[in-house]
């Protein structure tokens, strides 16, 4: 074990906090509670600072300094939001909320129609015979799977008879999709743990070269 890296104050703190969080797996305990409380405080502070420096200063203050007065409207909406703190006129904050929700609805309506709607239809229009068996079968699977998957999502028709059969096939495709995504993910999750363990055994305890 490497005493220098072990007693390095930064490593020591990071190491104890790491162990504190992991200890939750055994059971809830005072060290975890401490880590949790500290984590909530620090992270809330972190995002407050980030927002001040990456949103409020560049997107409001700087814009106003460079005389883009249209940003006064954004600032005004922001102030309306703070009126929540004044119970009598807190309803004014709904104007800002309405602005956020309205813009979001508009952006998403268009964005999803294009990317998830039209583009996916476009990508699914595939020739069933490509000249090679492998890709032809692949295309057939994509077309049938997408089609049956959509049948599953029908709300206003009972899943019975042929329609119900198609919906069943759709469910099977969804299950393969979920299984595949789950299996694929295991790797990602293990990587994260490997990273933390690499810190403990490598950077902190100096046991790995």
């Amino acid at each position: 074990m490497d005493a220098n890296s072990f007693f390095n104050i930064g490593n020591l703190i990071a190491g104890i906090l790491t162990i504190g969080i992991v200890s939750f797996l055994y059971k809830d305990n005072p060290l975890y509670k401490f880590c949790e409380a500290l984590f909530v405080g620090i992270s809330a502070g972190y995002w407050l600072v980030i927002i001040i420096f990456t949103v409020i200063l560049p997107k409001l203050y700087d814009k106003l300094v460079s005389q883009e007065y249209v940003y006064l409207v954004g600032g005004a909406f922001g102030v309306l939001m703070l009126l929540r703190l004044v119970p009598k006129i807190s309803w004014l904050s709904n104007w800002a909320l309405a602005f956020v929700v309205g813009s979001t609805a508009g952006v998403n309506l268009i964005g999803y129609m294009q990317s998830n709607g039209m583009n996916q239809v476009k990508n699914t229009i595939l020739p069933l015979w490509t000249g090679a068996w492998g890709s032809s079968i692949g295309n057939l699977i994509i077309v049938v799977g997408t089609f049956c998957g959509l049948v599953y999502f029908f709300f206003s028709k009972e899943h019975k008879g042929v329609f119900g059969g198609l919906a069943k096939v759709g469910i099977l495709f969804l299950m393969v999709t979920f299984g595949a995504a789950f299996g694929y993910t295991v790797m990602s999750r293990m990587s994260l743990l490997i990273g933390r363990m690499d810190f403990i055994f490598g950077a902190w305890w100096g046991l790995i070269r």
Partner: protein
Amino acid sequence: MKKILVSSFLFLAAGLIQAQVPAPPTDVKAYDTPDDAGNSISIEWVMSADDKEGVVTGYEILRSESPQGEYTRVGDAPRGTNSYIDSGPQNGKDYFYKIRALSAAGPSDSEPSAAVQTKAQWFKRNRVNGLVALLLLSGGILYFIRKARSGKEIYIRKIAGIEAVEEAVGRATEMGRKIVFIPGIQDMDNMQTIAGITILGHVARKAAEYEAKLEVPVSRALVMVACREITKQAFTAAGRPDAYKDDMVYYITDDQFGYTAALDGLFVREKPAAIFMQGAFFAESLILAETGNYIGAIQIAGTAQPSQLPFFVAACDYTLIGEELFAASAYLSKDVKLLGSLKGQDVGKFLMMAAILVGVILTSLGVYDLSRIFTVR
């Protein structure tokens, strides 16, 4: 051209082994970039005849306000390209372009283009198909909303996760334990969050009716504001406005895992009987769902985050999958207008399926590539 010939002749004559300058690009065409806000000119040219490895290294795009005037470089294009979009020019002014082929031996310029002006347009013609799709899809939805208003009964199939809401609230009441509602980790500028908190409205109303304890920890301040409005409203609608407290909805932290750590702590210490997770979830989905499962809570999840669906499906009792999340609020409200919109969505699905089917048949027979009309730029 003459100059180049002469100089190359001289080089050869001198017996120097040196590359000659490349042939210049030709046929430079400049035109106003279509369907845009102006301030942009597209330039196309025929590549230098010597556009090959080791000779031409790239192109420079030169611009001037008069054909004979001073040309300044406005951009570069790599070897093997024959177009460029210049986003520097001002609207309503004449411009001329030259393309310069670069090489180790020196540059060679094309003839200037004809004069070109740029201006802003009022419609993106290449998005006509988008407009048609928008009108068809929203038309279908609006039609059925109207139709539903006129009192026509609409059949909507059962969605297990939604049916279970009442059961979950009932169980929490019986056990005298809390209901925790988690509206995801994204802000109000995500449609999933908005869909999630409309579901909160129904859950809160049920909770108020059953006199169950509801807790809504959130990770975004705007979401906190919206959740408070909605919960307060639900309690008022259930006839128990006094039972509503602002403290039911509280902010923890904007941080994904800080929020998760706090929720995990909350789960194991308070042991809520029912956990709702409705909205946009990311990696925390499984941490929350597994901890919730461990404490034996009944869990109803819903998200349109495809990557997280498998975890909810594996670890929760019920999961609203994708579109079902957006349908839930309509379903729970039993409001005919909202139910009508679900029927409208089905029309949209039908149109998409029909397009795929027809498209696949036409492409397979080699008649017409229908996918072209679904390309939106």
